[in-house]
């Protein structure tokens, strides 16, 4: 198995979780989310890939959006925040993530991994 391909699959699943978690902190717009994912989460997200993801989350009712005329910008920005369904999904994702990381930690500890 190719390590890069495996890492890619790992990141694919993490992107949605990371976006919802960032939106739980506060309302953000697309480019802001992209920068946070790269800088704070360490996900090498390709330019522009954030928008199909946000589009789908919005269509699925997990996030809601509004256009804002920011005083510090020359153009309107589309801000996103979690919906009630999105917050509930995030709770479930957190639970699943914790269970998974605990299980992997147990496995790697038992095997004596360094």
């Amino acid at each position: 198995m190719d390590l890069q391909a495996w890492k890619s699959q790992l990141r694919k699943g993490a992107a949605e979780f990371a976006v919802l978690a960032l939106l739980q902190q506060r309302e953000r717009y697309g480019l802001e989310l992209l920068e946070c994912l790269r800088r704070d989460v360490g996900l090498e997200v390709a330019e522009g890939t954030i928008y199909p993801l946000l589009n789908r989350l919005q269509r699925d009712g997990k996030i809601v959006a509004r256009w804002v005329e920011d005083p510090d910008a020359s153009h309107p920005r589309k801000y996103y925040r979690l919906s009630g369904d999105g917050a509930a999904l995030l709770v479930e994702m957190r639970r699943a993530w914790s269970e998974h990381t605990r299980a992997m930690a147990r496995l790697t500890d038992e095997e004596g991994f360094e």
Partner: protein
Amino acid sequence: MEHQSPARPAAMDSYLRRLRFALAPLPPEARDEIVREIRSHFMERLDGAADPERAFRETAAAMGPAEEYARSFVDDYRIAAAVAGGSGFAMLHVALRLAGRGIRALLGVAVLLLVFTIALALVIVALLKPIFPAHVGAWYAPEAGIVAIGFLDARTAAQASELLGYWIIPIAILASTVLYRVGTTLLRRFLRWHQTPSVEP
């Protein structure tokens, strides 16, 4: 303090026009919203840039050609519409469009096509049994190498035992229904897997 708009490169308008055209399969409101957001993204990148033309070129290069970039939205929309509709055939149609995107997709679609083909074949068996009762059935003749469900010509049918009689009709319909449901479930999962965005540059 009023924020000055950066000078908008002509190439940006061209990109957005091509993007809008490539998003044609989407409803107009969805298309307009996407184009508006991508315009905002470009403007954000241009803000404060010493060389707006260069900033746009680099951003557009990172996004990829407008037509290819639009595909992710269009695929997503088609998948969502097919999955929401629930029809196995509508989902299969979308899956066939995606089959050319890689070997995994191709294999996945091949398996799904096989499942649906068998389901359809069973329906045909159920329909043909009352019309050709002596030729259609569940046939067994190991010495002649015949283990089959389907239509046999008179000579071959004479060599084999037919096992189910008219019971093949409800059994074939039931099996076909189960296969259709299994196929539809697998198809939905395949399409949802395909929807998960790749985030790699």
